[in-house]
């Protein structure tokens, strides 16, 4: 992660192109730069292999690899990255499973810009302090 007041590199992983587009537009003009988007977990792993990303915003329900499986794989590879899980579901067990897998936060869809920025600011603040 970066030190000082700098921009954070973000990847959005969601099988919904509509969702990726809208989350990305929520982050326009902020210090969170969306440098990559992926429609599947496998695509995301490939991108993460070849780039430095600070924060991954990951959808829970995706084909091939779920958000929880992807998060586990990311941390198996010991990536220095923070994960925000997003989903239309909000069951307690799903939230707990996401956090146990390594997610730093869980946001229910539809995602309000304010909630997303609060979560990102909190995560970036913690990572800067570490």
């Amino acid at each position: 992660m970066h030190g000082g007041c700098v921009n954070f590199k973000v990847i959005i992983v969601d099988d919904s192109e509509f969702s990726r587009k809208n989350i990305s537009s929520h982050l326009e003009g902020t210090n969170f730069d969306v440098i990559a988007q992926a429609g599947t977990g496998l695509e995301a792993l490939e991108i993460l292999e070849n780039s430095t990303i600070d924060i991954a915003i990951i959808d829970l329900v995706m084909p091939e690899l779920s958000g929880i499986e992807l998060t586990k794989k990311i941390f198996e590879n010991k990536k220095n990255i923070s994960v925000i899980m997003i989903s239309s579901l909000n069951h307690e067990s799903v939230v707990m499973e996401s956090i146990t897998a390594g997610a730093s936060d869980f946001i229910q869809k539809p995602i309000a810009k304010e909630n997303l920025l609060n979560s990102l600011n909190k995560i970036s603040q913690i990572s800067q302090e570490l």
Partner: protein
Amino acid sequence: MHLELVSTKSANLYILEGMQKSIKPFLKVYDQIHFTLRKPISMVNKIRKETNHEFGFSFNIDGELKGKAIALIDTFEKNISKNEYHDLKAAIQEGLNIVIGNTLGELDQNIDLMSLISPPSFIDLEDNFSIKEKFDLRITLLYSIEFNNKMYNCRLYYLLDKKIYKQVCV
């Protein structure tokens, strides 16, 4: 304390009441697509496309309730270009994911039945589509969807099988 299996009739009623409490009457997704409930829950027998102006999505439901959520969207007389159709599909797919996912989340909170949805499969305008499988509970709702200043009718079906055990204190 023991576990008692409730009767089929009361189990259906239990889920139906839970669904009534849990459905979203209105949902705005990213300020771009609006879902408004037009007709409340009713029971249904036939689930099929009525014309080839309808497209849709089918989500599998798995957990303490098993089955499907199917949405059919009517595009009759909407004059949609190819690009508009692409955008409409993408917006409705995500909108439905949110409407159904939020409803299942509420259902878990209201009647303690936990179920998850799968990524959807797409039903195109030209596809023949009907459901012949039997489900314990077949319910439908009618939403109107507003996207890009156009309104679309959307029939949303929940086809559910359940295995409910109710805990009773004795």
